[in-house]
């Protein structure tokens, strides 16, 4: 449950509700960016996502490496991606 998954921010939604749309493994989902409110997240940024929240801004290279590492994890990774995709944060 402690996995963080990289996602690319594609859109900032309601700033009042700290919502952003991210691309995770090719699928778009909403996440909460409240915890990065001081870091001026903009579309194109990569973030590490954990339980529906962006917890750290990362660079593209780190995102790519993290993804490769996660893919090597097999089942644990697919379960986590599946969970992200089933989540309906609004």
């Amino acid at each position, binding site marked *: *449950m*402690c996995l963080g998954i990289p996602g690319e921010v594609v859109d900032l939604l309601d700033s009042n509700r700290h919502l952003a749309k991210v691309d995770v493994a090719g699928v778009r989902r909403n996440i909460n960016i*409240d915890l990065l409110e001081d870091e001026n997240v903009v579309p194109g940024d990569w973030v590490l996502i954990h339980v529906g*929240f962006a917890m750290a801004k990362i660079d593209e290279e780190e995102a790519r490496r993290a993804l490769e590492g996660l893919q090597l*994890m097999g089942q644990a990774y697919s379960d986590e991606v599946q969970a992200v995709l089933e989540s309906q*944060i609004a």
Partner: protein
Amino acid sequence: MRFVDEYRDPAAARALVARITELAGDGHYKFMEVCGGHTHTIYRHGIEHLLPTSVELVHGPGCPVCVIPMGRIDDAISVAQAPGVIFTSFGDMMRVPGSRGSLLGAKAQGADVRIVYSPLDALRVAVDNPEQPVVFFAVGFETTSPSTAATVLKARQDGVMNFSVFSNHVTIVPPIKAILDSPDLRLDGFIGPGHVSTVVGQRPYRFVPDEYGKPLVTAGFEPLDILQAIQMLLTQISEGRCCVENQYTRCVSEGGNPRALAILDEVFEVRPQFEWRGLGFIPESALKLRPEFANWDAELRFEVPGVRVADPKACQCGEVLKGAIKPWECKVFGTACTPETPIGTCMVSSEGACAAYYNFGRLHREVAVTMGGPR
């Protein structure tokens, strides 16, 4: 060389292993990783079998699922069974055994227990079911607790009064201290947790070198990260230095994430005591909601029996969590205790040492053979 070839940069991995072997020389070094993600990487990639016998890795209490004591599971089940309650939990917690079964069992018996990915999903369940109390089973270190805190703030902002949190959030520093204080364990250093440190930063670990004279290197989750962290630990030792170093600068900064820490502090306060499975009571090691958030505190809204339940006799999770024994040295490992029918928590989560070894141990031995490795 199959496993080394799986690494992003096999040549770099080989070079690191060679350097580690050289630095360790004839010594014997024991390093503990305190992060379940690291434990998973170590087993998944057979890192222990790449290392020379002079370097031993000990898997610490870094999996938040593994450290929840039986009594808290019993409490969770009794809240889940309260009239009308919808109880929400991360999937990992569903199989964790209490003294009278698991949440999965309670669900089979009719309790409304739902798996959620995020505390925000739990909040949504509450919005969608305004007539029913919805409880979120909150577990996790500082990686996860700020998300719970932000969700509680959102519940207050949106006036979602039927939502509450059963907090079992724990903090990373006290168990490290408890392990350093435990007499039966001799460690030479720590591989510091990755994601937890993106939140707390590096400063909270300074007591490890300052008060206990042990080095700590925060590491990322790739096999190469772990190998590099081990090399950095050995380098410190060989140069007679002892400090907190950061291998994972890609994600971890000195001060962590100040906003996450501020939100955490706004919503939570430290409990005087909390019981850890296998480790007993550790002072100031867990979080509960502040009195201002009483409406969202499940422990105040529901009858929580709070009975202390001893760990099962056969269970040696405590020794595994302290690194005193290896998973396969537990008498019930792989026989009475398997991921399908776990007796202890270390077998439940994929980040637990026993489950990781159970799932990847076979590969481990293969690696040892194909590598013609040290073990």
